[in-house]
Protein backbone atom coordinates (compact mmCIF):
# COMPACT_ATOMS: atom_id res chain seq x y z
CA UNK A 1 0.00 0.00 0.00
CA UNK A 2 2.69 2.48 1.13
CA UNK A 3 4.88 1.39 -1.77
CA UNK A 4 2.14 1.97 -4.36
CA UNK A 5 1.43 5.47 -2.94
CA UNK A 6 5.16 6.21 -3.04
CA UNK A 7 5.32 4.96 -6.65
CA UNK A 8 2.34 7.14 -7.59
CA UNK A 9 3.99 10.30 -6.28
CA UNK A 10 7.35 9.32 -7.76
CA UNK A 11 5.72 8.90 -11.20
CA UNK A 12 4.21 12.41 -10.97
CA UNK A 13 7.75 13.73 -11.41
CA UNK A 14 7.40 12.64 -15.05
CA UNK A 15 5.54 15.28 -17.11
CA UNK A 16 3.70 12.58 -19.11
CA UNK A 17 2.15 10.96 -16.01
CA UNK A 18 1.49 14.34 -14.44
CA UNK A 19 -0.35 15.41 -17.62
CA UNK A 20 -2.59 12.33 -17.37
CA UNK A 21 -3.19 12.77 -13.62
CA UNK A 22 -4.25 16.41 -14.17
CA UNK A 23 -6.58 15.35 -16.99
CA UNK A 24 -8.27 12.84 -14.69
CA UNK A 25 -8.59 15.30 -11.78
CA UNK A 26 -9.89 18.36 -13.68
CA UNK A 27 -13.56 17.23 -13.97
CA UNK A 28 -13.66 16.30 -10.24
CA UNK A 29 -12.24 19.64 -9.14
CA UNK A 30 -14.49 21.54 -11.56
CA UNK A 31 -17.68 19.85 -10.33
CA UNK A 32 -16.78 20.30 -6.66
CA UNK A 33 -16.03 23.98 -7.39
CA UNK A 34 -19.37 24.51 -9.19
CA UNK A 35 -21.40 22.75 -6.46
CA UNK A 36 -19.68 24.69 -3.65
CA UNK A 37 -20.02 27.98 -5.56
CA UNK A 38 -23.76 27.52 -6.15
CA UNK A 39 -24.34 26.63 -2.47
CA UNK A 40 -22.11 29.47 -1.25
CA UNK A 41 -23.64 32.10 -3.53
CA UNK A 42 -27.26 31.14 -2.82
CA UNK A 43 -26.60 31.08 0.93
CA UNK A 44 -24.50 34.24 0.88
CA UNK A 45 -26.59 36.36 -1.44
CA UNK A 46 -30.10 35.17 -0.59
CA UNK A 47 -30.23 33.66 2.89
CA UNK A 48 -27.41 35.31 4.84
CA UNK A 49 -28.65 38.00 7.25
CA UNK A 50 -28.01 41.69 6.68
CA UNK A 51 -24.96 43.05 8.52
CA UNK A 52 -25.72 45.90 10.94
CA UNK A 53 -22.58 47.87 10.19
CA UNK A 54 -22.25 47.46 6.42
CA UNK A 55 -25.87 46.74 5.43
CA UNK A 56 -26.20 44.70 2.23
CA UNK A 57 -22.85 45.91 0.84
CA UNK A 58 -21.02 43.33 2.93
CA UNK A 59 -22.23 40.65 0.47
CA UNK A 60 -19.22 41.62 -1.68
CA UNK A 61 -17.27 39.67 0.96
CA UNK A 62 -18.21 36.39 -0.76
CA UNK A 63 -15.99 37.24 -3.73
CA UNK A 64 -13.57 39.70 -2.11
CA UNK A 65 -12.24 37.53 0.74
CA UNK A 66 -11.90 34.29 -1.29
CA UNK A 67 -9.98 36.14 -4.02
CA UNK A 68 -7.74 37.85 -1.42
CA UNK A 69 -7.18 34.47 0.29
CA UNK A 70 -6.23 32.93 -3.05
CA UNK A 71 -3.87 35.80 -3.90
CA UNK A 72 -1.81 34.92 -0.80
CA UNK A 73 -2.23 31.11 -0.89
CA UNK A 74 -1.22 30.90 -4.55
CA UNK A 75 1.93 32.89 -3.83
CA UNK A 76 2.85 30.52 -0.96
CA UNK A 77 2.25 27.50 -3.26
CA UNK A 78 4.40 29.17 -5.93
CA UNK A 79 7.20 29.84 -3.43
CA UNK A 80 7.19 26.22 -2.17
CA UNK A 81 7.16 24.86 -5.74
CA UNK A 82 9.88 27.32 -6.80
CA UNK A 83 12.08 26.23 -3.88
CA UNK A 84 11.56 22.53 -4.73
CA UNK A 85 12.33 23.21 -8.39
CA UNK A 86 15.42 25.22 -7.52
CA UNK A 87 16.84 22.68 -5.05
CA UNK A 88 15.88 19.30 -6.54
CA UNK A 89 15.37 20.35 -10.21
CA UNK A 90 11.95 18.67 -10.35
CA UNK A 91 10.30 19.72 -13.62
CA UNK A 92 6.72 19.48 -12.35
CA UNK A 93 7.51 21.82 -9.44
CA UNK A 94 8.79 24.42 -11.93
CA UNK A 95 5.65 23.95 -14.00
CA UNK A 96 3.36 24.40 -10.96
CA UNK A 97 5.19 27.58 -9.95
CA UNK A 98 5.13 29.06 -13.45
CA UNK A 99 1.50 28.04 -14.17
CA UNK A 100 0.23 29.52 -10.90
CA UNK A 101 1.46 33.04 -11.65
CA UNK A 102 -1.28 34.17 -14.11
CA UNK A 103 -3.99 32.77 -11.82
CA UNK A 104 -2.47 34.52 -8.80
CA UNK A 105 -2.27 37.76 -10.77
CA UNK A 106 -5.95 37.60 -11.74
CA UNK A 107 -7.13 36.90 -8.18
CA UNK A 108 -4.97 39.66 -6.71
CA UNK A 109 -6.46 42.05 -9.27
CA UNK A 110 -9.96 40.81 -8.40
CA UNK A 111 -9.29 41.30 -4.66
CA UNK A 112 -8.14 44.88 -5.32
CA UNK A 113 -11.08 45.74 -7.59
CA UNK A 114 -13.78 44.21 -5.36
CA UNK A 115 -12.12 45.79 -2.30
CA UNK A 116 -12.21 49.15 -4.02
CA UNK A 117 -15.88 48.72 -4.99
CA UNK A 118 -16.67 47.84 -1.37
CA UNK A 119 -14.45 50.64 -0.06
CA UNK A 120 -16.42 53.46 -1.65
CA UNK A 121 -19.76 52.86 0.11
CA UNK A 122 -18.01 51.73 3.33
CA UNK A 123 -15.25 54.35 3.68
CA UNK A 124 -16.18 57.00 1.10
CA UNK A 125 -13.06 56.38 -0.98
CA UNK A 126 -12.13 53.98 -3.77
CA UNK A 127 -8.50 53.77 -2.67
CA UNK A 128 -6.32 54.55 0.35
CA UNK A 129 -2.55 54.12 0.49
CA UNK A 130 -2.73 52.12 3.71
CA UNK A 131 -0.50 49.14 4.51
CA UNK A 132 -2.98 46.43 3.43
CA UNK A 133 -3.98 47.90 0.09
CA UNK A 134 -0.49 49.06 -0.83
CA UNK A 135 1.12 45.70 0.03
CA UNK A 136 -1.57 43.86 -1.97
CA UNK A 137 -0.81 46.17 -4.91
CA UNK A 138 2.90 45.33 -4.58
CA UNK A 139 1.91 41.63 -4.63
CA UNK A 140 0.11 42.28 -7.95
CA UNK A 141 3.33 43.83 -9.33
CA UNK A 142 5.31 40.82 -8.06
CA UNK A 143 3.02 38.46 -9.98
CA UNK A 144 3.35 40.65 -13.10
CA UNK A 145 7.15 40.68 -12.71
CA UNK A 146 7.32 36.89 -12.35
CA UNK A 147 5.12 36.37 -15.46
CA UNK A 148 7.15 38.91 -17.45
CA UNK A 149 10.49 37.43 -16.43
CA UNK A 150 9.30 33.89 -17.22
CA UNK A 151 8.18 34.92 -20.70
CA UNK A 152 11.25 37.05 -21.45
CA UNK A 153 13.78 34.21 -21.04
CA UNK A 154 13.72 31.66 -23.86
CA UNK A 155 15.61 28.83 -22.13
CA UNK A 156 13.14 27.08 -19.79
CA UNK A 157 15.76 26.02 -17.22
CA UNK A 158 17.15 29.57 -16.89
CA UNK A 159 13.62 31.02 -16.83
CA UNK A 160 12.59 28.60 -14.08
CA UNK A 161 15.65 29.47 -11.95
CA UNK A 162 15.24 33.24 -12.44
CA UNK A 163 11.50 33.24 -11.64
CA UNK A 164 12.09 30.92 -8.66
CA UNK A 165 14.61 33.36 -7.15
CA UNK A 166 12.28 36.32 -7.75
CA UNK A 167 9.35 34.38 -6.22
CA UNK A 168 11.39 33.50 -3.13
CA UNK A 169 12.50 37.12 -2.71
CA UNK A 170 8.87 38.25 -2.82
CA UNK A 171 7.70 35.76 -0.20
CA UNK A 172 8.56 38.27 2.56
CA UNK A 173 5.47 40.20 1.43
CA UNK A 174 3.07 37.47 2.56
CA UNK A 175 3.48 37.74 6.38
CA UNK A 176 3.56 41.53 5.98
CA UNK A 177 0.19 41.49 4.15
CA UNK A 178 -1.27 39.22 6.84
CA UNK A 179 -0.23 41.46 9.75
CA UNK A 180 -0.88 44.72 7.89
CA UNK A 181 -4.36 45.10 9.46
CA UNK A 182 -3.36 44.03 12.96
CA UNK A 183 -3.25 46.87 15.52
CA UNK A 184 -0.97 44.70 17.76
CA UNK A 185 1.76 45.27 15.17
CA UNK A 186 1.09 49.00 15.06
CA UNK A 187 -1.09 49.04 11.95
CA UNK A 188 -4.10 51.29 12.50
CA UNK A 189 -5.36 51.22 8.93
CA UNK A 190 -8.64 51.91 7.15
CA UNK A 191 -9.05 48.26 6.18
CA UNK A 192 -10.92 46.31 8.84
CA UNK A 193 -8.98 43.77 10.96
CA UNK A 194 -9.10 40.06 10.17
CA UNK A 195 -12.41 38.43 11.21
CA UNK A 196 -12.50 35.29 13.32
CA UNK A 197 -14.98 33.09 11.47
CA UNK A 198 -15.17 30.64 14.39
CA UNK A 199 -16.41 33.31 16.80
CA UNK A 200 -20.21 33.50 16.47
CA UNK A 201 -20.26 36.79 18.41
CA UNK A 202 -17.99 38.39 15.82
CA UNK A 203 -19.43 36.84 12.65
CA UNK A 204 -22.93 35.33 12.59
CA UNK A 205 -22.90 31.66 11.49
CA UNK A 206 -25.35 32.56 8.68
CA UNK A 207 -22.67 34.84 7.25
CA UNK A 208 -19.60 32.74 8.15
CA UNK A 209 -20.75 29.39 6.66
CA UNK A 210 -21.25 30.63 3.04
CA UNK A 211 -18.03 32.63 3.49
CA UNK A 212 -16.06 29.43 4.22
CA UNK A 213 -17.87 27.56 1.43
CA UNK A 214 -16.90 30.27 -1.07
CA UNK A 215 -13.24 30.14 0.05
CA UNK A 216 -13.19 26.37 -0.62
CA UNK A 217 -15.00 26.88 -3.92
CA UNK A 218 -12.31 29.34 -5.04
CA UNK A 219 -9.58 26.92 -3.93
CA UNK A 220 -11.11 24.19 -6.12
CA UNK A 221 -11.40 26.73 -8.94
CA UNK A 222 -7.69 27.44 -8.59
CA UNK A 223 -6.99 23.68 -8.66
CA UNK A 224 -9.04 23.26 -11.85
CA UNK A 225 -7.50 26.19 -13.73
CA UNK A 226 -4.00 25.38 -12.47
CA UNK A 227 -4.23 21.88 -13.94
CA UNK A 228 -5.40 23.35 -17.26
CA UNK A 229 -2.34 25.66 -17.31
CA UNK A 230 -0.07 22.78 -16.23
CA UNK A 231 -1.27 20.60 -19.13
CA UNK A 232 -0.58 23.48 -21.56
CA UNK A 233 2.90 24.03 -20.15
CA UNK A 234 3.68 20.28 -20.34
CA UNK A 235 2.54 20.19 -23.99
CA UNK A 236 4.73 23.21 -24.77
CA UNK A 237 7.82 21.81 -23.05
CA UNK A 238 7.40 18.25 -24.36
CA UNK A 239 6.36 19.26 -27.89
CA UNK A 240 9.27 17.34 -29.45
CA UNK A 241 8.48 14.05 -27.71
CA UNK A 242 6.63 11.26 -29.49
CA UNK A 243 3.86 10.96 -26.87
CA UNK A 244 2.85 14.63 -27.36
CA UNK A 245 2.92 14.25 -31.15
CA UNK A 246 0.72 11.15 -30.87
CA UNK A 247 -1.62 12.94 -28.46
CA UNK A 248 -2.08 15.97 -30.73
CA UNK A 249 -2.53 13.94 -33.91
CA UNK A 250 -4.93 11.58 -32.15
CA UNK A 251 -2.78 8.46 -32.46
CA UNK A 252 -2.94 7.79 -28.71
Amino acid at each position, binding site marked *: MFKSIKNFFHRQGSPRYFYQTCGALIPWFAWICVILMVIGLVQGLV*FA*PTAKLHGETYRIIY*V*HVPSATLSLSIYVIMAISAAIGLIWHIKTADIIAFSSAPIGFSFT*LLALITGSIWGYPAWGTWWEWDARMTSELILLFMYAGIIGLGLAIEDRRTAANATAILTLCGVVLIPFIIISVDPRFGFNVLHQPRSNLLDAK*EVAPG*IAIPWVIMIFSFLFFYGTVLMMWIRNEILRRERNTQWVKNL*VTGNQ
Partner: protein
Amino acid sequence: MMESGIFDMISNFFYMDGRWSYIWSAYAVAALVLAINVILPKLIRGSIEKQIRRRIELEKE
Protein backbone atom coordinates in the same frame (compact mmCIF):
# COMPACT_ATOMS: atom_id res chain seq x y z
CA MET B 1 -24.90 41.91 16.08
CA MET B 2 -26.66 40.89 12.88
CA GLU B 3 -30.21 41.49 11.72
CA SER B 4 -32.35 38.90 10.01
CA GLY B 5 -32.34 40.02 6.40
CA ILE B 6 -33.84 37.43 4.06
CA PHE B 7 -35.42 39.21 1.08
CA ASP B 8 -39.21 39.08 0.90
CA MET B 9 -39.42 40.00 -2.81
CA ILE B 10 -37.20 39.26 -5.80
CA SER B 11 -37.02 42.98 -6.65
CA ASN B 12 -35.64 43.65 -3.14
CA PHE B 13 -33.01 41.02 -3.75
CA PHE B 14 -31.78 42.76 -6.91
CA TYR B 15 -32.15 46.22 -5.33
CA MET B 16 -30.00 45.20 -2.32
CA ASP B 17 -31.24 48.09 -0.19
CA GLY B 18 -30.00 50.63 -2.74
CA ARG B 19 -26.48 49.15 -2.89
CA TRP B 20 -27.17 47.09 -6.02
CA SER B 21 -24.68 48.95 -8.23
CA TYR B 22 -21.73 48.18 -5.91
CA ILE B 23 -22.69 44.58 -5.19
CA TRP B 24 -23.62 43.52 -8.72
CA SER B 25 -20.65 45.29 -10.30
CA ALA B 26 -18.32 43.43 -7.90
CA TYR B 27 -19.98 40.12 -8.88
CA ALA B 28 -19.82 41.04 -12.58
CA VAL B 29 -16.06 41.68 -12.32
CA ALA B 30 -15.66 38.40 -10.42
CA ALA B 31 -17.61 36.51 -13.11
CA LEU B 32 -15.46 38.12 -15.80
CA VAL B 33 -12.20 37.18 -14.04
CA LEU B 34 -13.38 33.58 -13.51
CA ALA B 35 -14.47 33.33 -17.16
CA ILE B 36 -11.11 34.69 -18.42
CA ASN B 37 -9.31 32.16 -16.19
CA VAL B 38 -11.24 29.31 -17.85
CA ILE B 39 -11.20 30.61 -21.45
CA LEU B 40 -7.55 31.74 -21.65
CA PRO B 41 -5.88 28.33 -21.01
CA LYS B 42 -8.32 26.74 -23.51
CA LEU B 43 -7.35 29.27 -26.19
CA ILE B 44 -3.64 28.81 -25.45
CA ARG B 45 -4.03 25.03 -25.64
CA GLY B 46 -5.61 25.41 -29.09
CA SER B 47 -2.69 27.49 -30.32
CA ILE B 48 -0.09 25.07 -28.85
CA GLU B 49 -1.79 22.09 -30.54
CA LYS B 50 -1.92 24.03 -33.83
CA GLN B 51 1.84 24.78 -33.62
CA ILE B 52 2.66 21.13 -32.88
CA ARG B 53 0.48 19.93 -35.81
CA ARG B 54 2.15 22.40 -38.18
CA ARG B 55 5.58 21.22 -37.03
CA ILE B 56 4.60 17.56 -37.60
CA GLU B 57 3.37 18.40 -41.12
CA LEU B 58 6.63 20.23 -41.88
CA GLU B 59 8.61 17.24 -40.62
CA LYS B 60 6.61 14.92 -42.93
CA GLU B 61 7.29 17.17 -45.96
